[in-house]
């Protein structure tokens, strides 16, 4: 009976496999070949990791992504705990407003940062009012950081909220009734219970930040995050081997972080939007 049920199963998978092989595996294979096929051969990777221009770009992107991840996790933990635990009028509207920007592409986020901290932005107007000078932060690393937090909050918040909803309230009450302070409950009960969700969403947040291109592009700041460097190498520098090598390094980093997070947390880490 069940043998008859499952017979032509491979046919169902075939189209996806063809698409994935033709448009993902083969191109990725070619990318690797190109990256070691330049004038310098495999030395391109050595070059990518030692030349100060590429190295500083990589380090800047790493620092920016780690800072974004930690800040976003903190914000999402506080807001997510609050929104999942309390019922008040307008609460679902608040959740909708906080998660709506999930679908904004990076370029739009960059533009919104200019609205906040650009030459004609909100903070510039505020600065004019307060001390007569335009306060701008959009075109520096602060602008990037603000933008990265902006697009990270919705996705991390959703994960944290659903994890809080599944959490056992009894544990917390037990800890509190035995005299644990708020801080102790947070440290010893809440954070450990949410750890898988925090690790999973943190890893997604990190990976998205590492690969984010649109925000840096829209802000056109002098800061060369990795995707920007790859883009410049490819289009302006016409250094295809270096662009390919940097892409592979970047892809390896994000993939390994997601893989590691999944093996540690056991949770599903598929980046959302």
């Amino acid at each position, binding site marked *: 009976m069940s043998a008859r049920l499952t017979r032509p199963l491979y046919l169902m998978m075939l189209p996806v496999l063809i698409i994935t092989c033709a448009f993902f595996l083969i191109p990725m294979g070619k990318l690797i070949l190109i990256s070691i096929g330049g004038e310098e051969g495999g030395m391109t990777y050595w070059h990518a990791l030692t030349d100060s221009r590429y190295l500083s770009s990589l380090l800047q992107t790493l620092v920016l992504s780690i800072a974004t991840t930690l800040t976003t996790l903190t914000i999402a933990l506080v807001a997510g705990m609050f929104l999942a635990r309390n019922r008040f009028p307008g609460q679902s509207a608040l959740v909708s407003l*906080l998660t709506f920007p999930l679908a904004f592409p990076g370029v739009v986020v960059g*533009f919104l*940062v200019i609205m906040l901290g650009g030459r004609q932005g909100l903070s510039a107007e505020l600065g004019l009012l307060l001390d007569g000078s335009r306060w701008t932060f959009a075109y520096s690393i602060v602008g990037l950081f603000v933008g990265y937090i902006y697009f990270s909050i919705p996705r991390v918040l959703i994960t944290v909220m659903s994890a809080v909803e599944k959490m056992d309230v009894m544990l917390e009450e037990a800890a509190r009734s035995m005299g644990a302070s708020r801080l102790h409950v947070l440290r010893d009960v809440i954070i450990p219970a949410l750890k898988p969700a925090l690790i999973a969403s943190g890893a997604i947040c990190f990976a998205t930040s590492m690969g984010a291109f649109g925000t840096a592009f829209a802000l056109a700041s002098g800061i060369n995050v990795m995707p920007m460097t790859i883009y410049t190498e490819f289009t302006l520098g016409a250094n295809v081997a270096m662009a*390919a090598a940097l*892409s592979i390094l970047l892809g390896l980093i994000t993939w390994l972080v997601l893989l590691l997070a999944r093996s540690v947390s056991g949770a599903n880490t598929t980046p959302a939007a």
Partner: protein
Amino acid sequence: MKRSLSYYLQLGFTLLICAFMVVPVLMSVAAGLTNNYFQGLSSGLTLRWIEEVLALYSDTLWLTLQLALATLAVNLIVGVPAAYYLASSSSRWARIFEELIVLPVAIPGLAIALALIIAYGGVHGLRTSWLFILIGHVLYTLPFMVRAVLAVLHSINFKTLEEGAASLGAGFFRRFIDVVVPNCKGGIISGALMTLTLSVGEFNLTWMLHTPLTKTLPVGLADAYASMRLEISSAYTLIFLVMLLPLMIGVQWSGSRLRKPRA
């Protein structure tokens, strides 16, 4: 009920974050409808900028819609059967395939776009065609479709339903179309909405894959941000938000609908 101080501190913090997310959007909407943003709202409201954007960029709107629908069509045709295979098969290969499908989401779009250009950029006619962007969008959105359908298939006992249909003489494809697909409708709808939303907003891949004749809305936005006055950029952003809004509402609605029966 009396609320504690910490309640109000948390509420204040959450509202602050909400303001951070919403205020720049409102500013952008206002700027797109104002005659002169630097003089403020007192310069009067206008639809002039919207009209100008429609005159300049309406082709990007149509291409974006066309791409989103085509991506959806491909995802439905290949993604739903794939999810069914992954849910039915317990072989080691099924797990490997699942990893493989999800892999493109774990790798930055720029890297995938670069790989596609290197591999197929030289194919005559493909580089300049919108189909080149379609390939990128399918790679990027397919995992979300497969995951959404897979989640529903894991939660229902479709094997029993199928065996029932089989005992009545229904063949394999008949069972798939008449039994499996209707039963995972919720997952298909949610995956479809996700596909449309992601495709409409995709930039990382699309920026690399586009040509001057195949510009999507986010690509046009980047263009406008770099070269147009603030009002036009804002009006263009407004049009984009209007396009996105029903999709986002749909995603939230289908998400809450899927969650309810289990809770």
